[in-house]
């Protein structure tokens, strides 16, 4: 038996190809949306991997440092370092802000890292060019996605930094590229005000009789000094010595240091389950909408194509064609349309959308397989309306009168 669907497609190939192209662009957007979600999850995991930490010690009862603000005294690391099983500790600050280079601005996650060496928690684990930060101030290592180059001068708040190293795939969970600067600079940048604001704050403090008492010389200067410095960090990253249990150590810190501690698994749960949960729901909603739109398009096209063949279907039924042969013809055409659409969509998502999309788009093979199956299911379901219309055709329509 010849393939009626195949012959019809070959006969009207232009209609099928162009419809498939349109459907393919829609499928491409759908695959890209799924890729964006995967990219966000991957960004979150990469952020945790690159931090080099086994435990994140943050302000008590917060989800810091990525999902909520967290503030710890900078000397919190001392008692932690002395605990059995702790190999290394390092303080970090994270601040998402606009980093300027002349008139150009880049949204970046500025990360303050402690002096140390490669392998220190918080440090970029590898560089693709240049060197790590070696000076205590005004040097930066930046992700390639910032677009900065070695030797560039960046402006963070009022200070200028020289790019001494480049790294790759160091992004926040939101996809912003990271800029590493010395911890002290980052602490200052977090709360640095402009000169007018500082002068005004000093004036207000001086006018407060509680801080400016004649009997207590030096009090006013001490208060102003405390207002001008930032003794806080966002988190202390802990590396555990081999052979020690992260859960056990985390529990000990929670109990004795009155701090909140997250293990790698818990932090991943916060990032994926809480921080990008809203985005995931939005993307999921988009996927549903796009799937419904795709289904409507396929249903409309196949239904229109079927209505255009009512007389031929009546003739086919009159000469004894089985209903299942006619149904198969329509379903096969819908599947072919979906197949063309999927190929176009996959190519579009992989070669056109992913490279130019501002966020990281991760197209996983398994997602493609799932997408292909979903497209086929949608096409088959969408063709059922046309199948129903075809099966209702009376063979008598082929006979006049």
């Amino acid at each position, binding site marked *: 038996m010849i393939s*009626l669907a195949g*012959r019809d497609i070959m006969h009207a190939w232009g209609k099928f190809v162009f419809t498939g192209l349109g459907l393919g662009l829609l499928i491409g957007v759908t695959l890209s949306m799924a890729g964006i979600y995967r990219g966000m999850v991957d960004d979150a995991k990469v952020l945790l991997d690159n931090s080099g930490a086994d435990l994140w010690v943050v302000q008590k009862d917060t989800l810091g440092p990525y999902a909520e603000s967290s503030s710890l005294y900078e000397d919190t690391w001392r008692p932690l370092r002395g605990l059995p099983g702790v190999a290394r500790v390092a303080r970090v600050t994270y601040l998402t802000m606009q980093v300027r280079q002349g008139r150009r601005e880049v949204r970046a996650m500025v990360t303050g890292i402690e002096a140390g060496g490669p392998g220190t928690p918080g440090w970029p684990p590898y560089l693709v060019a240049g060197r790590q930060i070696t000076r205590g101030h005004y040097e930066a290592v930046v992700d390639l996605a910032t677009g900065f180059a070695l030797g560039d001068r960046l402006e963070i708040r009022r200070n200028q930094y020289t790019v001494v190293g480049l790294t790759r795939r160091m992004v926040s969970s939101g996809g912003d590229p990271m800029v590493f600067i010395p911890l002290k600079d980052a602490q200052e940048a977090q709360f640095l005000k402009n000169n007018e604001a500082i002068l005004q704050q000093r004036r207000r403090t001086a006018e407060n009789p509680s801080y400016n008492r004649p009997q207590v010389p030096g009090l006013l200067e001490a208060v102003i000094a405390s207002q001008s410095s930032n003794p806080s960090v966002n988190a202390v990253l802990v590396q555990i010595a081999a052979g020690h249990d992260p859960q056990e150590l985390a529990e000990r810190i929670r109990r004795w240091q009155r701090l909140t501690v997250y293990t790698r698994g818990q932090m991943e749960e916060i990032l994926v389950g809480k921080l990008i949960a809203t985005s995931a729901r939005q993307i999921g909603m988009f996927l549903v909408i796009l799937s419904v739109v795709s289904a409507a398009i396929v249903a409309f096209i196949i239904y229109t194509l079927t209505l255009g063949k009512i007389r*031929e279907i009546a003739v086919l*039924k*009159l*000469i004894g064609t089985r209903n299942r042969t006619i149904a198969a013809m329509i379903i096969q055409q819908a599947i072919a349309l979906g197949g063309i659409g999927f190929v176009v969509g996959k190519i579009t998502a992989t070669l056109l959308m992913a490279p130019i999309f501002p966020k990281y788009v991760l197209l996983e093979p398994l997602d493609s397989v799932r997408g292909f199956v979903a497209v086929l299911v949608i096409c088959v379901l969408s063709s059922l309306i046309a199948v129903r219309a075809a099966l209702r055709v009376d063979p*008598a329509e082929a*006979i*006049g009168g």
Partner: protein
Amino acid sequence: MDGGGIRIQGLQKSYGSGDTAVQALKGVDMRVDPGEVVGLIGPSGSGKSTLLKCLGAVIEPSAGRMTLGEEVIYDDGWRVGDLRALRRDRIGFIFQAPYLIPFLDVTDNVALPPMLAGRSNFEARQRARELLQALDVEHRARAMPAQLSGGEQQRVAIARGLVNQPPVVLADEPTAPLDSQRALGVIRILNEMAGKFRTAIIVVTHDEKIIPTFKRIYHIRDGVTYEEEGEGRAPV
């Protein structure tokens, strides 16, 4: 079954029920022998199309008996089980317009009925080519229907109606879109094919120019048929 022709006795068909019932056929008798081509003539609303649909096993009559060869198709409310298979294997159709499948070439249009009947593609195409040769359209075997002239399309449609060598062929105004010469050509072909394959052919027509070519004619009026037979009709 070959050589049995088609016979109907007291065929009735009603639409609706109660006060709104319309009796389209009121007891039709008809007999067409193998190798014979008969005309079926009647004005609009006479029951012509209803009769054709009953003969074509598309709709079921309300009463009466119909036999195809020795096989009983309808008998006062009883009917043969699989009407679709009956249409596929034992009844050929030729329509007013050719109604060829536009996405199949000429050969496959003709080969489709035997393929549907379960014959191999090779065998079905072989039979199609033989018929196309007999109908003098073999040179257009690879053409698509849209590339054919009206006369060629109708000859291909005739080939499709005959390809399964059915004992009966129903032709619904097959010459309507054709000029006189081509119309007479189609009737000549039908007569040749009826003789060659021993097929009973019923031609429904309004076409004045071909009516004289039938040796027997059934007139249908108000759901009742009247047979007209006579010598001296114009030879085909």
